[in-house]
């Protein structure tokens, strides 16, 4: 699998978070899901998107560890390394 472009992943994750109702101006790599009002169902949906679109499986134990938007992006990029 080719190395993923971080910016591209970032844009996809931002779009997903916006669709969950997060305020676009508040979305950045340091924002926590709690601050964005992104709940556990949103995160379950996000893991499904990540798995379908990047082939990266996110277990519920992973999701529990992820606190910020940057954490998710880093995990996707790291796990998609060839």
């Amino acid at each position, binding site marked *: 699998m080719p190395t993923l472009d971080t910016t591209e992943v970032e844009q996809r994750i931002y779009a997903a978070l916006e669709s969950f109702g997060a305020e676009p101006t508040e979305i950045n790599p340091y924002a926590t899901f709690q601050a964005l009002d992104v709940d556990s*169902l949103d995160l379950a*949906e996000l893991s*499904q*998107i990540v798995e*379908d679109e990047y082939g990266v499986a996110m277990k519920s134990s992973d999701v529990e560890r992820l606190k910020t938007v940057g954490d998710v992006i880093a995990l996707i990029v790291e796990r998609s390394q060839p």
Partner: protein
Amino acid sequence: MRPQEATVLVTGGDRGIGAASARALAADGWNAAVLYRSGERTAAELVETIRADGGRAQAFHADLTDASACEQVFNDVEESLGPVLGLVNNAGVRADNLTLSIDDGDWDLVLETNLTAAFRLTRRALRAMLRARFGRIINVASVVGPRANAGQANYAASKAGLIGLTKTIAAEVARKGVTVNAVAPGFIETDMTADLPDAIKEAVPARRAGRPEEVGACVAFLASDNAGYVTGTTLYVDGGLAA
């Protein structure tokens, strides 16, 4: 609002309540995926009838007690008919006996078919429904479960389980535009009830058995845009039996 192109998957869709539901849903504009296990001929006939009425339908075979078959048939339906935004978990079997005489095989068969398959298909269906911010899941439960019926511990457990599943998933996904409801048919004239004595009808306040179409109409309502604020509930279609 339901998107223009939306598919509803109806398990056990080749006959009885499933077939009546598939017809009613297709008449409402859903693409109907008719899932059958053994009724290849009846499924094909139903598909022809729906098409003759101007609807869109296709039959698919699956043994829902097989987890990988659930996944495979779901993929096949999506590929052939597009996103599945409606799911009617109707497939059901009976293996009646007094509890002392229910063996593990009969327990597992009924729970796997009536409850576990519904869970697996729902879990799979929610992916697309959540993304579409629209989904309709209807579980075909029974008056048996909420009510006792000696000789049906496995069936009652599976149907009561479906109602618990319905309520819980409804609460989980309500804010995403996905509704999850159950219908609880009473004594309905189908193959499944063909061997029951007529005396049972005497216990029904309406003094008659219901028709599959009367359940199908309720399923179609719960799947409609008009039912968007109805979720987590069980609609009894039983001639007053549970009243």
